[in-house]
């Protein structure tokens, strides 16, 4: 088991392997650290942080669907101040690459958050969430307007030299335009995809199963859509892509990398198998050995079409 270089590069950021944990699916790292060794993973992306604390949506926030789940957590988070005060110290000791995901209700808020966190040495990069479908203010209204994505990227770029990743929404006809906009304004990478908008109703009460009415669909159900989005970006825009959506095992991770992803993120699978990240890293290593790949980064975009 040696001789495989699992490291990947996203802009100036070097990850020891391509397996990251997705925003909103591992909190701030403490709970999941009981199940998996976070020092082994490529990186951890925090739950979206906003300038002020957000209580999030009232219950019910989640419901299961066929091979997937809907969530409308509503960006519940401790807010910037508390994040810096209590979460970063814990994350600093984890010996894992920390990427801070930022959500906001205005362009100014994105800028302010990024600025405040830029000086935190523990934060190695920013993932800008312009694609949360579950809050009215912010999120998807930015993510579905290419000019907003352009503006946000430019303004955030202006206040930090750390790598910037723009997290894109799949709820659009042409994701490549958004990736191109991000690239044009200096983003180092894009991540794709955030959840798809979906809903579910109780047929007897006639009420939505989640309080917010619609939620974000995640899990294996969305994998084919996520792969198509990653492939679309990969074939059209020259920017590193972090693939996300329905990854359950190392085979799924390989599939994303073949379609163009430089790294991948695990979301829903963490809820079901909190040790998935370690298993996937192991699986990737074995796949490289089996297929005589000395550098996993050669897998990225290796599709034959």
């Amino acid at each position: 088991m040696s001789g495989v270089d699992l490291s990947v590069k996203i802009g100036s950021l070097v990850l020891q392997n391509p397996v990251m944990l997705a925003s909103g699916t591992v909190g701030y790292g403490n709970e999941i650290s009981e199940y998996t060794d976070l020092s082994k993973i490529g990186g951890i992306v925090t739950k979206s942080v906003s300038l002020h604390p957000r209580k999030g949506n009232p219950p019910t926030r989640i419901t299961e669907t066929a091979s997937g789940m809907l969530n409308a957590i509503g960006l519940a988070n401790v807010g910037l101040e508390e994040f810096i005060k209590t979460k970063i110290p814990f994350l600093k000791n984890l010996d894992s690459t920390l990427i801070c995901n930022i959500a906001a209700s205005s362009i100014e808020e994105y800028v302010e958050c990024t600025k405040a966190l830029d000086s935190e040495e523990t934060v190695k990069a920013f993932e800008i969430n312009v694609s949360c479908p579950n809050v009215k203010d912010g999120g998807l209204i930015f993510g579905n307007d290419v000019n907003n994505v352009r503006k946000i990227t430019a303004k955030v770029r202006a206040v930090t030299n750390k790598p910037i990743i723009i997290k894109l929404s799949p709820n659009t006809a042409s994701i490549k335009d958004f990736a191109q906009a991000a690239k044009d304004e200096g983003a180092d990478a894009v991540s794709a995809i955030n959840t798809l908008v979906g809903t579910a109703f109780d047929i007897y009460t006639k009420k939505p199963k989640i309080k917010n009415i619609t939620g974000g669909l995640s899990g294996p159900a969305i994998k084919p859509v996520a792969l198509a989005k990653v492939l679309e970006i990969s074939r059209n825009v020259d920017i590193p892509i972090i693939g996300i959506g329905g990854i359950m095992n190392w085979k799924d991770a390989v599939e994303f990398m073949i379609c163009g992803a430089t790294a991948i993120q695990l979301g829903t699978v963490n809820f079901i198998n909190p040790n998935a990240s370690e298993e996937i890293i192991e699986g990737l290593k074995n796949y490289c050995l089996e297929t005589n790949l000395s550098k996993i980064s050669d897998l990225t975009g290796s599709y034959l079409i």
Partner: protein
Amino acid sequence: MIEKNAIVKSVEEIQKGIFILKVESELSALEATPGQFCNIKVDDSLTPLLRRPFSICDVEGNIISFQFNIVGEGTKILSQKKKGDILNIIGPLGVGFNYSGNYENAIIIAGGIGAAPFPFLIEKIPNNKNIISFCGGRTKNDIISYKLKNVITSTDDGSEGFHGNVVELLESEIHKYDKAKTKIFACGPNPMLRALSKFTIENGYECEISTESVMACGFGICQGCNVEGVHSDRFLLVCKDGPVFNAEDVKL
């Protein structure tokens, strides 16, 4: 809190639609507290995708029991497990009942399948306490008293015991017990817990309730199991802050 493959020892239908699942697990069952739960992956398929939470019903050595009824696909699959099948289980999870303290009467209120966590609690409650179990159900077929002690029953349709719901039963019986020396432990459907909390808060009884919520993870990372707290400006999480709460701390 650990994740482990457990071996199914038996699945028994103890009464119509009510099952006891016993598994053998390396997970240190002995460390579990009554009221805690485990999150079980019913099989390795993608449907159902998520784990299913079940209270720990009983612990004997390294055998853990769960008591459940069939609700949907997940519990149906569980009910069909055979001896020797493997189940991936995370647990014990959450905050259980606080059964220490100097009360004398432990009053258990179980609504239907809400009886599940109490065999384990009864075993742990010190011997010098007086345990009374109030069990309610819609009909006499819905009453579950598996491994409970000193059972008094109520049914909505009057087919067995007190005619009415289990909270009404409690109200009619509670005068027999010294308030200051009594602690109530309850589990059941939300409307029952709501009615009970109202009663215990208004009348100043010490009361802990075990609550339910849809869950994705069961251990605090998805934020999906929130419940409105009374003294808290953030939501509480059923899986981490609960499932057992002081009745006065949550708004159901």
